[in-house]
Every structure is written in structure tokens, then in C-alpha cells.
């Protein structure tokens, strides 16, 4: 048969996402976006130019072979498409949903220069979700007799565990919580990343023979030396950077003022939205104000809507253009009714007669010269103070290194308490590797996952001497 040259469908609009109506979805925890159908995926795959020099790949932190998997979609070779992605990205269902594609693959895609880029993220998640349908059977090398301990079951720990298990290592993941997934479970809400997906990934690892030890706080229950005595040959630290930062303004400890970590953990991990069936309570604000401009702030604001808030305001020091959140999240939040209050900073929280927060005093800001991050620095405007009412306030202004890192192993830290590593993830301790947020500071799922994969390769090389 003569080979038919592929002709992209030039000029076709980007296949729209299948999203639930904003007014309905903003009242419960159902997934916001139900994902592409096969027909959607094929239509979208037909837009790809199959570039000789694919810019999209340059934008992907782990170098997924994007045009190659898109080609397999066109051929309706779903299993082939999935395995092409999985060669570089172990968690396509997750990354397809949470990666900041607009700064990565889609941000670089040539089609984006004039119109809309190929919806690479949508294609990726759709393939990831097809894992059960195409029945992937990951191959494991025979057991090599070496034991590796991993601390933390977030994306970085999961990725490292998966890679090593496939290479025949005996892997145990120690997790402080009673369940796995790290931020994927306790941070990112159900409506954006269904917990069933995270669970499936963990079960997949269990099938590969990975052991999970929950309720195990490294640094308190055991330390690195004890693990080595127990016969582990290497340790990968992927404890994240979960420690919340505070605004340090007056009234921040009033009841009703949450840090986003607590608000989201109560909701996602402890299922406070099902109180009193679940025992963990959460305050249902009518008038909620969230501080921050990242994904965490968006998740908190949208969670507040789903807990029944009448008005949710997101207050940010800079403007929407500088917000670090994924564009899709900002778009969804606004669509659902979150109001954005740009250029203001909280001065203090004031209590009402019941002792709970009732008012926030804010100050207007203006943008000055760019700071170290390249974003324009917000400067307070004198005399611009104003107050708004609120019965729940949530701060989402970033996190710091997890303090247990230094208790679990003798490794060098930098001045922010993050672990120092080389490009392979090696720490100052020859038997200890580290990666993910505890090395980079709060970053992204894909980078955490990539670090886990890199460390796994380095651990393998070191132990097996290959």
C-alpha cells in the first residue's frame, strides 16, 4: 500500500473541552472537565502539524515525545499512544489535568503563534484515563535483591517507586499520612483531580510489588541510619515543602482565618464537606476572602464556593496577569463566580462579637520595578486603606521546607532548609537521594515526578554499578 502522507487539518479550531456548566458544578465536588471523547481526541490530533523540530517537546520538562503520541492517536493506536507517553511521564492522568501547559508544551506549540495550540494536556489526560481500557501490563525485571526506601508518597516518591520497582528493586514507601498521593490527595481538590485517579496510580504501584507503610513519620518513627541497618541500600527523600507561610498581620490567628493547607486538608483528605457523616468539621463561610494568586489560592476559592459560600473574593497583591496559577484555573474560578480583587494586601483581620473573623482591612498596592522573580514588585499606596466584611479568610501565600527533612537523614540543607542535591538527585550523604518540592521549593507535579525518575536512574546506576 502506498504511504499516504499525513495532511494536518489546518485552520481547524481547537476542540473545546467538555466542561460542566459553571453554575451547577460550582456547588458540588464533581469534576469540572469530563475530558475528551475519542472523537474529540482524533479531531484534535489532526490539528497537529507533526513538526520536524517539535517546539512542544522543548517546553516539556520531561521531554514527552508529543508528536509521536499524537500520531498514534490519529492511528487510533491507543495502547501505543499511552506507552509512548508513559516512557517519559508516569502519571499522564495527573499531569494532563494539573500541568501548567500554557507555560510548557502548549506554550511552545507552533500553532499557538497565530491561534490556539494543540490541546496536548487534554490528549494526555485522556490517554492516561484509558489505562484500564487498553490494559497496560507494565513489565518488571526480576527481583535484584536490593531494597530502597522512599519517604513521601507525593508525585516524586511515586515516580521514583515506579521506576525502581520496574527495575526489579524491592521498594518501600513510608508516608506520614494514612493514605498516599501527597499534595495530589490532600491539596488538589476532587473537582480538579479525582481521588480515584490517584488511588489507581497507587494501586498500580502495589501491583508492581511496592510496599506502602502509612502513618510512618520519618525522623520521628525512624531515621535513615535505622533503615540502612534494616537492610535498605538507598533512601529517596520526597517529603515535599508543606510548611505554610503566614502573612504575620494582626488577627491572623482568629478563628475563621485558615491557611489554605488546613482548609484544603480538612476538605480533601478528611472530607469535611461531608460533615457530620465524616467527623472533621470546617467552617462554611458565606463571605469568603482568599489571599494569593497561585493554584493553591484558586483551589481554596473554588472549594469555598462548593462549601456554599455566597461570595468568594480572591485578593492578590499584583494583577491577574502576574498570577502564577494555571490559566485554566483562573478562567474556571472566574467562570464559577470568584471575584478577583487586584492590587491589595491585608493589613489586619478584625473579630466580630462572636470572636470569629468578621472584617478585613486592606491596603491598595501599585506595581513598581520588577523584582528578582522578574515580576513587578507591589508597593503599598499610602492612605488607601479600606475594609471588607468576611466570615472566612484563607491565606495561600506559599510554603516552606518541611522541617522533618533534617530529622530523617544527615544531609546538607541550603539556607531555606531545602535539601542540596546534584543534578542526579544525590545529597551530601552517599546513600541518600532527594527530589521534588523539598529540593526545588514549591514547584510543580511534573518537576517533582521528573526528579523522582532521575533519582531512580541514579540509584540504579549506583547500586547495580551499570
Amino acid at each position, binding site marked *: 500500500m502506498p504511504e499516504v502522507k499525513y495532511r494536518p487539518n489546518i485552520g481547524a479550531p481547537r476542540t473545546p473541552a467538555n466542561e460542566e456548566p459553571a453554575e451547577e458544578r460550582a456547588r458540588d465536588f464533581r469534576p469540572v472537565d469530563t475530558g475528551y471523547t475519542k472523537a474529540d481526541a482524533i479531531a484534535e490530533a489532526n490539528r497537529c502539524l507533526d513538526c520536524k523540530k517539535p517546539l512542544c517537546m522543548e517546553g516539556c520538562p520531561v521531554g514527552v515525545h508529543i508528536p509521536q503520541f499524537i500520531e498514534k492517536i490519529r492511528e487510533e493506536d491507543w495502547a501505543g499512544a499511552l506507552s509512548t507517553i508513559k516512557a517519559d511521564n508516569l502519571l499522564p492522568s495527573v499531569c494532563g489535568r494539573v500541568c501548567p501547559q500554557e507555560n510548557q508544551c502548549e506554550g511552545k506549540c507552533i500553532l499557538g503563534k497565530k491561534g490556539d495550540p494543540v490541546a496536548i494536556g487534554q490528549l494526555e489526560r485522556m490517554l492516561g484515563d484509558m489505562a484500564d481500557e487498553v490494559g497496560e501490563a507494565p513489565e518488571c525485571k526480576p527481583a535484584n535483591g536490593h531494597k530502597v526506601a522512599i519517604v513521601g508518597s507525593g508525585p516524586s516518591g511515586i515516580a521514583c517507586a515506579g521506576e525502581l520497582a520496574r527495575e526489579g528493586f524491592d521498594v518501600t514507601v513510608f508516608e506520614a499520612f494514612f493514605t498516599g498521593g501527597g499534595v495530589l490527595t490532600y491539596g488538589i481538590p476532587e473537582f480538579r483531580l479525582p481521588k480515584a485517579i490517584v488511588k489507581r496510580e497507587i494501586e498500580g504501584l502495589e501491583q508492581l510489588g511496592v510496599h506502602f507503610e502509612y502513618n510512618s513519620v520519618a525522623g520521628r*518513627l525512624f531515621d535513615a541510619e535505622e533503615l540502612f541497618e534494616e537492610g535498605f541500600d538507598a533512601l529517596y527523600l520526597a517529603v515535599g515543602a508543606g510548611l*505554610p507561610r503566614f502573612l504575620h498581620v494582626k488577627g491572623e*490567628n482568629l*478563628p475563621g482565618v485558615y491557611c489554605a*493547607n488546613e482548609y484544603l486538608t480538612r476538605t480533601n483528605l*478528611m472530607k469535611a464537606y461531608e460533615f457530620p457523616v465524616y467527623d472533621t468539621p470546617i467552617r462554611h463561610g458565606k463571605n469568603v476572602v482568599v489571599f494569593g494568586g497561585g493554584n493553591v489560592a484558586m483551589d481554596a476559592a473554588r472549594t469555598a464556593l462548593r462549601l456554599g459560600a455566597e461570595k468568594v473574593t480572591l485578593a492578590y497583591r499584583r494583577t491577574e496577569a502576574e498570577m502564577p496559577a494555571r490559566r485554566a484555573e483562573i478562567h474556571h474560578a472566574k467562570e464559577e463566580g470568584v471575584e478577583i480583587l487586584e492590587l491589595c494586601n491585608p493589613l489586619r483581620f478584625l473579630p466580630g462579637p462572636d470572636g470569629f473573623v468578621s472584617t478585613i482591612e486592606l491596603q491598595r498596592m501599585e506595581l513598581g520595578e520588577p523584582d528578582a522573580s522578574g515580576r513587578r514588585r507591589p508597593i503599598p499606596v499610602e492612605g488607601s486603606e479600606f475594609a471588607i466584611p468576611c466570615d472566612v479568610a484563607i491565606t495561600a501565600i506559599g510554603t516552606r521546607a518541611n*522541617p*522533618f527533612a533534617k530529622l530523617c537523614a544527615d544531609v546538607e540543607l541550603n539556607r531555606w532548609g531545602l535539601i542540596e542535591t546534584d543534578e542526579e538527585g544525590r545529597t551530601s550523604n552517599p546513600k541518600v537521594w532527594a527530589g521534588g518540592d523539598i529540593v526545588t521549593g514549591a514547584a510543580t507535579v511534573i518537576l517533582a515526578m521528573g526528579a523522582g525518575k532521575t533519582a531512580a536512574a541514579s540509584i540504579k546506576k549506583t547500586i547495580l554499578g551499570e
Partner: protein
Amino acid sequence: MYKILKKTQFSENVFEFRVHAPRMAKKAHAGQFLMVRINETGERVPFTFANWNPEEGWIEFIFMVIGKTTECLSKLEEGDEIQDITGPLGKPTEIEGDSVAVIGGGVGLAIAYPVARMLCEQGKKVYVIMGARTKDLLILFEQFAALPLEELFVTTDDGSMGEKGVVTLPLARLCETDSIDSAFAVGPVPMMKFSARTCREHKIPIVASLNPIMVDGTGMCGCCRVEVGGETMFACVDGPDFNADLVDWDDLAHRQASYRAEEAVSKKQYEEDCACQK
């Protein structure tokens, strides 16, 4: 799953569980705590280690029934399992001085007891001051009385047992007579606050074990934050023990009351569910 090896009832609403947890038994120290989640729908709640045995692989904690979770726990029997227990968490208690006053009130007595026992074992002179509103709320009296204490004081607000009044009365006497080098307090906020004030007047250092509401217990959520010396500290990792002289007590009291309404709903619902099952 963590199996209950032994259940002891000290009084109508105070129980002790011995639970199989070999790794934890090797690492527990006095003053540290664990977090329990009874079942899938349970809340995570902290309890202090009361005892542990690394050879036999168990840990013990004492709890007083006050709300839904503790009520539910009290219904479990030997052989039953608790879904999740995480620990040890927090820093161990360290108290300076050879002669120490241990002050406890309410549920805090369950926390004060292992600390008093540890101090006795360290060969210190230990004075215990137990406080309660009324006799029926005074828990673990016999257990304290069995320790080799210098002296045991009891105060009740209504005078139904011991001295009528509050814990600061015997505490002030101990300070005035130069009997103590330091103090340790755990219990309701007013009790700790006024103990701290009494000690400050006599320049006696005092440590308080704070009990804010907790969620993760590992420094991740910030729920347990307390103001100590003008700094935000996390009771679950920086504490639970702090220099009582520096604690912002009103802040702690407000935060502890964050979920009073929900706690009542939870308890009522539970009692109705229990009534249905009968």
C-alpha cells in the same frame, strides 16, 4: 490497623488503651503524642503517650470522654482495631530543676500523669496539683496517689474534694516556701494562664503543654499555631511544650473554641445514631 491489647477503665469516663505498635514503642518519649483516626470517617485527634514497652511492642494512652471521637473510642474493646495511629509526634518533655510542681486540670490530667511519673523515675522531687470544677471531674486521682510524690494537692472550685479554690493556691504556697525549682502545667487555658502568672511573680520557670486543635500533627496545616513570645509556633512540631510565660493565652483560647458548634452537632448526631442501633 492497630489492635487494642488491653482496655482499662479508671472511672466512668476515663480509659486507658494498650495498643500493638512495635515501631512506635521503640521511639516514644514522655510528652510526645500520637494521633488516632478510629475509622474511615473519623477525625484525627491527638493523645499523649502514657506508657510504652519496646520489648513487648505496645504503647498506651489515657483518654477522657468529652466528645464524639472519645465517646466512640470508649466503646471499643480488647481485640478491636483502630484504623490509624501516627506517632510519635511533638518534642519530648524536658524539665529542669530537682524539684518540680506538676499542675493538671481536666483532660490535662491524662497528659500530666505520664510526665509526673517520668519525673519521679528521674529521681526528682515531684509535687502534683490536681484541679477540677468538682469532684466528679477529677480524673486519675488514684493513679497519681500511687506515685512516689513529695505531696499531692487537690483543689476543686466547689470544695467537693480537697481544697476549695484553684490550683494557684497550693502553687503559690510551693513558690513562697521555696519548695520548687520549676513547674509544668497542662489543662484548661485559664488554669495554665494563672499558673504562669503565679510562677512569674516568684520567678519560677514554668513549661506548659499546649493543646490546640490539630489536623495533621506534622507541621503541614498550621491549625495548631500558637503565639509564643510574639512568634508563630506550631504546637505539633515546635511543642507541645512551651515556656508558659511567653504564651498568648487568649489567642489559644479563641482558637480552641473554633468548632464548638460543630462539636455539639457531631456529638448529638452520634448519640442519635447510637440510640437507633439499640
